[in-house]
């Protein structure tokens, strides 16, 4: 072990560079989406971009502070942070203020704080702490149950806040669990579940049951001599067929009307472009009108003139697509992918299990946000209101992502001090 001399020594500059590049490009687009002749000044704090400038400044400050904190601090306080966040999630349910149907904000003066943004960080800490405990084996049923409990608690409170989008992000931890030894089947099951869900809603339950029965029958002929596998096959058949009915039931009875609408829009079942299909249609128009090279900085019309709702938060990618075209959009996608791959590479080089697991958590959370947000704006996923990391306007999410990332950057910088 050796003492570090400088907080920046051993810091992974590639990650920090990607982080800064994405964040500043994001700010440029927030500026563009809110830009008007009257408000040109970049320090106009009555405008989103002016405030975002402050959030960015704070975010950099936060990252510096994290770099200065002792390396052992975070593993030590993991459970406390987790407990504190759970406490906040419960209190926001009781005391928070509702925005757009979600009761997920604390209003402190004119400042809004969203605990669920920080819950991802806390959950990641707790999960990493738990899974890095000596003698923990992913194969143990107890380990699995405890892991799911750690994930399930915040998810439950967030769902109670009526913020399904944020809750969905916790599915990202599947990657972490997978990396730590959870059966690969979980990915396959996840994939099959999504496929069954979509196919059921798209082509109807009768047809999909018929297809499943057909596949089972063919496989049955193929393996009919092996008794043990027949049992497995039958089990899978009953499970799949059952889930088809469950999807249908859930869609009809459990999903809220707006959630049903969003799925209908995605599947092309609804084409009401003025009503529920409006967001996605306008979003596609904005991105699609960008062309290869885009309309140019501040030249976007769809985003600037408010055709796209939530254009500086959840739909910020529209501004990028419209003003910077395919070229700019591709650069953003590639920057993100480089960041994710870099984080995974860094995670793999950690000597401490805690750091590795935590690193995978960071990559997974960021990746899920990236995947769902962009898929939504280009019409590949239903409208799920979650921010694009480091780009979407908003202090809570920017700080939460910064903390999430820099705690890992700090771990990485000090990886040689840890065992």
């Amino acid at each position, binding site marked *: 072990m050796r003492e570090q001399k400088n907080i920046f020594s051993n810091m992974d500059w590639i990650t920090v560079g990607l982080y800064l590049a994405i964040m500043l490009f994001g700010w440029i687009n927030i500026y563009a989406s809110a830009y008007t002749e009257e408000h040109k000044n970049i320090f106009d704090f009555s405008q989103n971009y002016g405030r975002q400038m402050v959030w960015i400044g704070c975010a950099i400050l936060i990252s510096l502070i994290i770099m200065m904190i002792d390396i052992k601090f975070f593993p030590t306080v993991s459970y406390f942070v987790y407990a504190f966040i759970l406490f906040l999630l419960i209190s926001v349910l009781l005391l928070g203020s509702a925005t757009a149907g979600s009761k997920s904000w604390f209003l402190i003066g004119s400042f809004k704080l969203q605990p669920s943004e920080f819950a991802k960080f806390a959950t990641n800490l707790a999960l990493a702490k738990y899974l890095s405990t000596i003698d923990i084996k992913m194969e143990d049923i107890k380990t699995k149950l405890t892991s799911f409990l750690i994930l399930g608690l915040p998810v439950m409170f967030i769902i109670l806040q009526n913020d399904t989008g944020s809750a969905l992000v916790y599915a990202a931890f599947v990657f972490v669990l997978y990396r730590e030894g959870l059966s690969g089947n979980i990915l396959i099951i996840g994939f099959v579940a999504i496929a069954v869900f979509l196919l059921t809603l798209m082509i109807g339950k009768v047809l999909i049951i018929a297809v499943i029965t057909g596949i089972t029958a063919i496989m049955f002929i193929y393996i009919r001599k092996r008794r043990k596998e027949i049992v497995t096959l039958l089990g899978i058949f009953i499970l799949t067929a059952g889930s088809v009915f469950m999807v249908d039931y859930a869609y009809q009875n459990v999903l809220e009307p707006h959630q049903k609408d969003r799925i209908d829009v995605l599947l092309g079942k609804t084409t009401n472009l003025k009503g529920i299909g409006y967001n996605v249609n306008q979003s596609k128009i904005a*991105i699609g*009108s960008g062309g290869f090279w885009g309309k140019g900085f501040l030249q976007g019309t769809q985003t600037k*003139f408010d055709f796209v709702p939530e254009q500086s938060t959840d739909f910020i990618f529209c501004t990028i697509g419209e003003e910077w075209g395919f070229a700019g959009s591709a650069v953003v996608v*590639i920057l993100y992918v480089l960041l994710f*791959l870099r984080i995974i590479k860094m*995670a793999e080089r950690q000597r401490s299990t805690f750091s590795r697991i935590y690193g*995978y958590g960071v990559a997974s959370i960021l990746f899920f946000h990236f*995947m769902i947000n962009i898929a939504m704006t280009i019409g590949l996923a239903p409208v799920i209101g979650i921010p694009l990391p480091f780009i979407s306007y908003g202090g809570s999410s920017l700080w939460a992502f910064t903390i999430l990332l820099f705690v890992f950057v700090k771990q990485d910088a000090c990886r040689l001090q840890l065992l």
Partner: protein
Amino acid sequence: MKAPYTGRKYIINIIIISIAVIFLFRLFYLQVIDDSYKISAERNVLRILPQYPARGLIYDRNGKILVHNEATYDLMVTPKDVKKLDTAELCKLISIDTKTFISRMEKARIYSSYAPSIFEREISQETYGYLQEKLVRFPGFYILARTLRKYPFTIAAHTLGYIGEADQELIDKDSYYKPGDYVGISGIEKSYEKELRGKKGVKYMMVDVFNREKGSFRNGLYDTVSVVGEDLTTTLDADLQAYGEELMKNKRGSIVAIEPGTGEILTLVSSPSYDPNLLAGHSRSKNYMKLLQDIKQKPLFNRALMATYPPGSTFKIMNALVGEQFGVLTPETRFPCSLGFHMGKIDVKCHSHASPLDLAESIQQSCNSYYCYAFKAILEKAGYKNTRASYNRWRDIVMSFGFGKKFFNDLPNELSGNIPSAEYFDRIHGQNVWRALTVISLGIGQGEILVTPLQLANFTAILANKGYYYIPHIVKGIGKSKIIDKKYTTKQIAKVDSNYFNIVLEGMSMVIESGTGTGAKIEKIKMAGKTGTAQNPHGDPHSIFILIAPLDHPKIVVSVIVENGGWGADWAVPIASLMVEKYLNKTVKRVDLEKRMTEGSVYYP
């Protein structure tokens, strides 16, 4: 230490890269391959705003404004922006009740919540003043200025015409017009539509999602500037027109006055008329229906161009000229009259006068018998059996005086009147059966002959010019350059030699001196005229008079027809005379006569 499951990082990397690749393909499709989003984007933000130029003004021949544009204000509403407001106060300001308010708001909302629509049309200047001050208290409402045609003198309604919104038929036919555009529907507004309307411009504006304007598109690269409509100078004399309308009050009929040297129409009165302002503005359709439903007076009917009358005795002048041209009449030719023309079954009555009369005297006395003989001589000029050929020759000459055909001038909706064709008589009487006596009533301007007041005035101009005319027209200048169609400066030659006109004009001056038109006499002005008393199936004969003044250098010719006015001398003669006095002397000294004419009424139920 080496953790197990290290290989799994590759799976995770592959998933991340796969998602990114899917995104890149999707983005490439949306942004580069599929063009439809670019079109949708333009449709989102571009609003094409037509720029309406001011419609051209219309002046009289002396530069008095007959038609101008007045600013009018429409109260517009954008339902989405309407916030809490004092409904009662707004209703009071524009004097509507709450029920109307609610139903109009509903209508506007159905049209569009985001786009403005008209809430109240043509607010008065006074209301506008009040409203403008208080408008801040009515969010969602704003005032849009437009222009309205205004007629400072309430004259020449038929001639000036009116404008209205383009109908679907026109919009389909002419792509210039869009729903809501105004277009000239009658009169000069119609015939000079292209000049008056100018050229619409187009402005491409960008709007945001709420339809709020956000500046011009590409700095106006694709905008076109509107071109203001041309001003027109008409040939009308506003004072004379007003005077003519005054004289024709409470009478049906028309006055047409022409400057013979140019064919410029000085006055075109059709009575009864209406206030042209009635057909401009928001009560237009209501007023129009009211005027249309007045079947008794037909105020919308432009008698000067569209009413056709038998010309009566005024047509004797025509036959005198044709007779001379045919060589069957000379100034010395005399025909007998024994209280009429009696031949075979034909019996055309005449009043008592000396007999036989020569040509000039026959005009002075308006002898029916003379013109029966003359017409018979004309038609039998080429032999009794060749009546048809002679008739055709007669008809040809008559039509060269502008009768029986349209002028195709700059006044829409004229009628051609009727000079019956030989074929027509063939059909009625049988081929080669009809002779001069069969159609003898044409000799005295009765029978099938029908002329319009404008044709009669033009005929009078030919007499004044001794053999030619310029197509009577209503506009003498377009725009600053005062260009006018060559058609109106080309001499139209009538097919009677000019030397034959002298004796006829002498007869017509005798009409004024000591004949049927002595009532027309004006001090120090030598004139020529001819009365007419047109028999018709609708009651008393029409009182007709044509007048040339001054005879030596004619400056004005007038034709007057007062429907069912009895003898020419009763109404038409004094009215024509007063018109001339007004035009040449500017003031009318015969106040009593003037009073009698303006106050008199000739109305038949």
